[in-house]
């Protein structure tokens, strides 16, 4: 897989001296779904606007699918689909007219555009409302139509800036399903910014966290979990004699702490190193005649990881600012 997006020391300073993006560097591979997380005003949207040629960087550079954002903006624009937090639709025109306009602007012929629009409308369940004015659509449907607008020319890369912001839970779920379908069907690289952590966790193959314009961390969910805490958690459920087994295993090297969960039949272990210590615990239990029902590593949620990153960054960033 090649590199889809590469940013090197990318910065954006708005007059007089507001540093929106501060020398961020990262690379995203083709086909990845990258979620960019961060609080309001962290620099997510500015980064998207820089990568999509809507803004010019103050310093640094970036390439998207090999196109330099400064040297080849036209070529880049032909090869990307962008959805900002607004669907950017012409509300007086029908959904079909909107999609046809954008398809033609990306070089599709009338026949190609018609075929593609019908195909998308069918796939995303918009066929019945295709000839209604976009202004008559609900907020969720507008956003969904905005996604179709961004993908009407089958771009290899899509930028989705907070696509579910301000939507009700049902609409959010519908838009999320649409993004999943886009990702599954097109093998498209997706750059997604969101506040919705479960959404990011569900959709992404890679995650980046930005705050005050600084890229705090980047990696897969697993990598981020490992980065934020060396301690892993494991839950083992046994048939009986749980407290006896707890005492037995708590002395094993690498076990930091143990406690019995509320159900009375499961022990939660805090471990130094999951890969080394888990087999020792299981062997000890089996040797002592335990009937093991389940061995389950406890994943730290993205929310925990995010909170941890933000908490530790606050200290660092505030210290830097001081």
């Amino acid at each position, binding site marked *: 897989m090649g590199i889809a997006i590469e940013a090197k020391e990318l910065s954006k300073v708005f007059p007089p001296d507001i540093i929106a993006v501060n020398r961020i560097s990262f690379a995203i591979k083709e086909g990845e779904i990258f979620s960019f997380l961060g609080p309001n005003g962290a620099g997510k949207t500015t980064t998207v606007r820089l990568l999509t040629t809507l*803004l010019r960087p103050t310093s640094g550079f970036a390439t998207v699918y090999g196109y330099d954002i400064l040297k080849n903006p036209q070529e880049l624009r032909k090869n990307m689909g962008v959805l900002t937090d607004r669907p950017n*639709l*012409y509300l007086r025109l029908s959904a079909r007219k909107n999609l046809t306009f954008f398809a033609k602007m990306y070089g599709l012929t009338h026949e190609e555009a018609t075929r593609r629009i019908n195909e998308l409308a069918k796939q995303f369940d918009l066929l019945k409302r295709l000839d209604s004015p976009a202004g008559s659509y609900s907020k969720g449907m507008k956003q969904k139509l905005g996604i179709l607008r961004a993908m009407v020319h089958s771009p290899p890369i899509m930028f989705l800036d907070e696509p579910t912001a301000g939507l009700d839970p049902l609409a959010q779920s519908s838009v999320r399903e649409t993004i999943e379908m886009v990702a599954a069907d097109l093998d498209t690289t997706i750059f997604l910014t969101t506040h919705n952590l479960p959404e990011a966790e569900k959709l992404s193959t890679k995650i980046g966290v930005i705050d005050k314009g600084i890229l705090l961390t980047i990696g897969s969910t697993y990598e981020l979990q490992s980065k934020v805490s060396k301690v892993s958690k494991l839950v083992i459920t046994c048939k009986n004699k749980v407290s006896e087994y707890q005492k037995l295993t708590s002395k094993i090297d690498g076990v930091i702490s143990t406690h019995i969960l509320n159900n009375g039949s499961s022990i939660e272990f805090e471990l130094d190193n999951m890969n080394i210590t888990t087999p020792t615990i299981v062997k000890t239990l089996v040797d002592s005649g335990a009937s093991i029902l389940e061995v389950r590593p406890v994943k730290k949620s993205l929310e925990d990881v995010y909170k941890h990153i933000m908490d530790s960054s606050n200290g660092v960033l505030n210290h830097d600012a001081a």
Partner: protein
Amino acid sequence: MMQLKLIWELIKKDWAEAFRSKQILLSTTILPLLLALGVPVIFMLSMSYAPMGTTDIGFDVFTDLLPPITSDWNQLSDKAQILIIASIFGQVFLLLVPVMIASFVSADTIVGEKERQTIEGLLILPVTDSEILLAKISSTLIPVLILTSIMGILYTLIVDFITFPYLGRLYLPNFQFILVMALFTPLLGFGTTTFIVMISSRVSSTRDAQQLTGFFVLPALFLITGQLIIIFINIWLIIIGILILGVFDFLTYKLALSLFNREKLMSQT
């Protein structure tokens, strides 16, 4: 190289949007129709019925001051002379059509995209600044020129209908009128539209754009209206006017292009 096909798609999109708004349709047809046809026709009709030379200060005092407008000027009756002058006065009103419509419509072209939150969608399209600018100018200018041409034809018919009994021949179209309609009017329309589109790309609301347009364009136009009546009498003055407008249009377009700033457009969204 200009992507003419994409410019055309942008123009068609703007038209499709505009023609769904009754407000725009009314402002682009009714008012100019009244101004360009109604006022001169009423003026000419009242002239055709006015008694000539019955007072000490008759119209002949005025017509005697003017240089000959046609080759047979001195053989024409006072009434015919005054009707010809009135028809030139009407041509100036006809010229106001593109300026008036452009003032209503172009003010919204770019800032309207900001207000309707479609500007990002426009700016991420694979088109250059000059292609966006040309599309925005043309989407106003083309229908305005079509409308002006139709009004020009109607005006010709009306003027000939009123003047024929006094001249014994068709007065319009003549070379001056063709020059004015084919070159002077489109150039004035292009310059005005470009100037207003430029304003539209620099302000934060359509109201601001309309106020600035009212502040700059309309007073300038009313100032030169008086001069235009003199210019339209002489063919060489018309040609000089066309050349000056050509230079003005070129400079205005270059200025509009240099002031078209994607970041500024984005900063207010």
